[in-house]
């Protein structure tokens, strides 16, 4: 594999990321690997452009416009005011004008006008409408994989245009004509065939968890367990499979296990649903998203649990919070036999699903969990809000709970906490640069450059407060920062989970 050489952006002197002068085409060379036959076939997509690709693409676009009315509104509503132009981390980091959200959307909007509006059909040159060409399709592929669907631009759009929806539609149409992305498509195959994105089979998962139990007992002298496939457990924990596999992710899994152990709550993981992540969100196919989400409902029914709790995974929490309900009937409204069964089975005193942070915070507040805060004194901590948690979900029973609860947990388990600059956190948080199906080596250039605004904000608190730990509640953020921090001369172990901090300080009862 030819190594792509690129220049790592220089850090700013403070938290502010300068808006760069445009460099047209600066990132047009970037092309994620195209998905091969096997995963595409499994997902029901072609893997090569057929001669009629153009008709297929336009036909599919028409279906999307009809089915997802939001998409049509987003296509029509933009007035090119430019409020979004300097809000995207990929534009700020790459200077490529096609990474301004308005321009990235325009790649689809100009085609929309040509085939779906009266003006564009009769006088395309008057309304900025253009035919769909192979060149445009290639640009879609390149630039719709330089968007992490983080929706920061949407926060600043006066019309509330959700760029992520456009990226998702773009990727789905690309899949439909045979240009799927290798990374996402392979993962969507593995999660459905094996149970998780990693492709970690049941026996390997069991062996891995046993090893972790041994480690915890060696370290603490307490037999903390990580139960798997236990029927009749009260809680089903669904967490990203990276929590079983990688550093620093495993540290959070250990944290969850210690919380459950301390409270004496019976809990279990499921080998059938050993993945919280749902890349169906990333490639914009709701039917795929439904199939992936269905595994969790099946596991909950099979195991007879009373609660479903989601671990530290950003987009999984969005899917769980905002989509499970309508996708699989968990929550409210499902009226098929299994939804009804699950509805009766789940404990209605708790939100279903709950986030692990909601669960831990509840038991910090009622005094059931005790901590030795000094155990985290070697850490000076900041918190990175993950995009899907920040801008697409909530926690607890108050507005902004998704910002307040993780920070409250950190402050309850550690003494040193400093927030990053206000325009880079909460709902204005900058993406880690690796979200939305971009966490793959073939996109490393966009990932490194797109991390610039977050790196500037981090550097600012490193300079001012000697911060040495950035906590987050997303497996993608953790993996992305582990890889990208060294490009900016930071230590890769600076990133970790909120439950890593919990696990460090908790007093095991």
């Amino acid at each position, binding site marked *: 594999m030819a190594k792509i050489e690129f220049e790592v952006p220089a850090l700013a002197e403070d938290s502010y990321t300068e808006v760069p002068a445009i460099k047209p085409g600066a990132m047009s060379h970037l092309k994620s690997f195209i998905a091969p036959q096997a995963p595409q076939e499994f997902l029901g997509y072609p893997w090569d452009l057929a001669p009629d690709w153009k008709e297929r693409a336009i036909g599919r676009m028409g279906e999307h416009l009809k089915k997802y009315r939001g998409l049509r509104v987003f296509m029509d509503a933009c007035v090119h005011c430019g409020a979004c132009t300097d809000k995207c981390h990929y534009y700020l980091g790459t200077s490529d004008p096609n990474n301004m959200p308005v321009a990235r959307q325009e790649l689809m909007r100009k085609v929309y006008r040509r085939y779906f509006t009266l003006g564009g059909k009769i006088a395309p040159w008057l309304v900025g409408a253009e035919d769909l060409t192979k060149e445009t399709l290639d640009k879609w592929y390149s630039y719709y994989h330089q968007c992490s669907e983080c929706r920061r631009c949407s926060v600043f759009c006066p019309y509330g245009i959700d760029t992520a929806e456009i990226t998702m539609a773009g990727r789905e149409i690309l899949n439909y004509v045979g240009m799927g992305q290798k990374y996402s498509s392979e993962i969507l195959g*593995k999660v459905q065939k094996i149970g998780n994105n990693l492709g970690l089979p049941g026996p390997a998962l069991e062996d891995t968890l046993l090893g972790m139990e041994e480690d915890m007992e060696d370290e603490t002298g307490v037999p903390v367990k990580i139960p798997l496939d236990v029927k009749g457990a009260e809680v089903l924990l669904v967490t990203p499979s990276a929590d079983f596999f990688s550093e620093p992710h495993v540290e959070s899994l250990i944290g969850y296990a210690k919380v459950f152990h301390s409270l004496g709550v019976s809990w279990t993981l499921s080998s059938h649903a050993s993945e919280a992540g749902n890349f169906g969100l990333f490639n914009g196919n709701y039917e795929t998203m439904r199939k992936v989400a269905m595994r969790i409902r099946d596991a909950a029914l099979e195991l007879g649990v009373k609660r479903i709790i989601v671990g530290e995974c950003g987009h999984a929490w969005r899917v769980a919070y905002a989509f499970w309900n309508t996708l699989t009937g968990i929550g409210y409204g499902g009226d098929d036999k299994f939804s009804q069964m699950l509805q009766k089975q789940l404990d209605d005193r708790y939100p279903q699903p709950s986030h692990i942070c909601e669960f831990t915070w509840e038991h910090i507040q009622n005094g059931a969990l005790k901590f030795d805060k000094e155990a985290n004194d070697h850490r000076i901590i900041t918190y990175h809000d993950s995009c899907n948690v920040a801008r697409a979900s909530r926690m607890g029973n108050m507005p902004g709970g998704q910002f307040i609860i993780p920070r409250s947990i950190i402050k309850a388990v550690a003494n040193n906490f400093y927030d990053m600059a206000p325009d880079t956190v909460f709902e204005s948080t900058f993406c880690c640069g690796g979200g939305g199906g971009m966490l793959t080596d073939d996109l490393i250039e966009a990932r490194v450059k797109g991390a610039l605004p977050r790196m500037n904000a981090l550097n600012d608190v490193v300079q001012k407060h000697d911060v040495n730990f950035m906590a987050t509640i997303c497996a993608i953020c953790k993996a992305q920062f582990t890889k990208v921090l060294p490009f900016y001369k930071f230590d890769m172990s600076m990133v970790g989970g909120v439950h890593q901090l919990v696990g460090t300080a908790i007093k095991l009862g």
Partner: protein
Amino acid sequence: MPMVEVAGKSFEVDEEGYLTNLADWDENIAKYLAQEEKVEMGDDHWEIINFLREYYNEYQIAPAIRVLTKAVAKKLGPDKGNNKYLYELFPYGPAKQACKIAGLPKPTGCI
């Protein structure tokens, strides 16, 4: 997919340089893959590579990082059973770089 020839044997790699067929792997191929990654193979590297292959044969997946560090600690001593040591051996990450040299498929997901 590109074909590569090493010591008279030709084999296929994918666009990222991972061996397509696990069964093709031999030590010469491992040396070639290591060279491509600019990793100079010493005895400690081989210990890791051999462990990865053994584990893969049993479980059809590369070992999780904890499993790997534990095995390394047992074999090479506790001072080497940690993530940092593995990154010294395989700077681009033990999960991906070591798997590649061991001829295993690339681990995917949020890692």
